């Protein structure tokens, strides 16, 4: 029986693992593209975009209206990740600059300045029928048959070795990989062991723009990086600093102290925050970006010899 498009589907999600399991022929392995998860509901003449939290994102990404022209189907639902590149790598903070803008004039500007790509990896519905009960492999076959990739729309490629892809994504400085069972159905709204994700620790060069104290000693550093000439606050971190580092910082940082926040998006004054001239640079490792563009679980990896302006986000 032909059905009309459902209004909503909650995407299926992988379970987080620390390291990739041994290669197994029952799985395929994909790059985990670092962006925003997006379902595209395609009907004649219109594409609706809905994110993981069921918010409509149609107006934010007008270039994906082109999907109707590159898919050989009357109705379809695609699952994928909307990404934006920065220095040739997918950047979550960059795609977030697009994700909240709805004013049509600004969107038009951003379409030119921050191009996005829709990395499609699954097909849930095609010409009036749900494909969610089919094995992943068959859904992928149908996806390759109907979708014609072009610059803003790309197909996510399945690899047969997770170990090799894990290495390659680490070398290419990408977020990580996802392993999916070849025979997995699409279980909407569930985190399921049929899909597993593995993430590399991420790295960002940062400028220290302030600190917090515990007692009389430096406890955490306020971290930021430059975008379009402005220093953006990205989070604070204390772990990773050795006792010796803290000794040194407790002496040196107060000498750099200034009254106003150097961060564009962190107004001064803030209780317990001491601001400094943004001159000291550090490398920060973190688990992932939070949705409001801050570090999750940041650790100071070490001091760098970079100039502050070289720390870009």
């Amino acid at each position, binding site marked *: 029986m032909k059905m009309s498009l459902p209004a909503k589907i909650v995407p299926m999600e992988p379970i987080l693992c620390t390291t990739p399991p041994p290669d197994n022929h029952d799985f395929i392995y994909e790059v985990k593209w670092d962006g925003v998860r997006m379902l595209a509901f395609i009907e004649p003449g219109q594409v609706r975009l809905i994110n993981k939290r069921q*918010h409509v994102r149609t107006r934010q990404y007008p270039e994906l209206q082109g999907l109707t022209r590159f898919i050989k189907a009357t109705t379809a639902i695609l699952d994928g990740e909307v990404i934006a*590149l920065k220095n040739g790598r997918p950047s979550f903070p960059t795609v977030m600059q697009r994700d909240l803008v709805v004013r*049509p004039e600004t969107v038009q*500007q951003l379409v030119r300045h921050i191009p996005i*790509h829709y990395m499609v990896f699954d097909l849930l519905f095609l010409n009036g029928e749900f494909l969610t009960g089919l094995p992943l492999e068959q859904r992928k076959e149908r996806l390759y048959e109907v979708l014609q990739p072009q*610059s803003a729309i*790309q197909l996510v490629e399945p690899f047969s070795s997770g170990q*090799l*892809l894990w290495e390659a994504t680490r070398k*290419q400085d990408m977020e990580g990989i996802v392993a999916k069972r070849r025979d997995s159905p699409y279980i909407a709204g569930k985190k399921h062991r049929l899909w597993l994700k593995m993430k590399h620790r991420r790295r960002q060069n940062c400028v220290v723009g302030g600190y917090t104290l515990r007692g009389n000693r430096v406890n955490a550093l306020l971290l930021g990086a430059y975008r379009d000439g402005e220093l953006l606050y990205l989070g604070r971190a204390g772990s990773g600093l050795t006792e010796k580092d803290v000794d040194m910082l407790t002496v040196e940082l107060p000498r750099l102290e200034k009254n106003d926040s150097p961060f564009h998006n962190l107004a001064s004054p803030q209780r317990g925050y001491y601001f400094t001239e943004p001159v000291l640079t550090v490398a920060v490792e973190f688990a992932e970006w939070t949705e409001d563009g801050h570090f999750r679980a940041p650790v100071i990896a070490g001091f760098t010899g970079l100039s502050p302006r070289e720390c870009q986000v």
Partner: protein
Amino acid sequence: MRTLWKGAVSFGLVNIPIKMYVATENKDIKFNYLHKECMSPIQYRKFCPHCDREINSEEIVRGYEYQKGSYVVINEEDLEKIPQENTRTIDILDFVDLQQVDPIYFDKSYYLEAAPGGEKAYTLLIEAMSRTNKIAIARVLIRSKQSLAALRVRDRVLVMETIFYPDEIRSPAELNTGVAQERLHENELKMAVSLVENLSTEFEPGKYKDEYRQALWELIEAKIVGKEVATPAPLQDRDNVVDLMEALRASVKLAEENRSKEQADKAPAKKGRKKRQTGS
């Protein structure tokens, strides 16, 4: 759309859980104010002229000026003392004909959507209102603020218009000219009526555009484009995601080759013997 508020529409004994959304949006182009000299966005700071210093929000209280220069302070605890039913509801009081409510009363429009569990009752209410061609007058309590509203059905969705209380509507008697009392000639009137009839048409909202906004936007865009020519910004290459995928494939292939080489090195005896055998 982002849910603005969750609550319930209550009508008799029926209670319909709903979610509320803002139905309209202002699309005016916003400007920032900059310091002419350095082009930095200016800041507004809270300043006390008496103490001659900037103050924090914790240092600010709410005051009502009951006579020039004299204030009574009203704090949160005071406000909590005002008896309010603290329910999150839209209470339907009456049903009336839409024509009876003059548009001057309408303030803001919101969409009400059935929340899970409320679908049946919601459908019932809009069906009943459509059949009887009535709108509902309701009392709304949102965040302890009470207001009056009209609920009506539009495209099978319940729309809530907050309405002004009668004492919030200014009387036209305050206008200087008063109500027109001029004497009119029959011919003038005929001409005016025929003019109105000639311009009469169906209301098609789609044909009215904000031409000023469009023109303003074109002006801004032209300036931005002009600036780009002066300092060419590195526009990103649209297709380098393809390069990235290519690099990744090459990386995987390289790792694969390295691995098979390693394996070949690890098991030299077996392979070596085979070679020798074929060689001899």
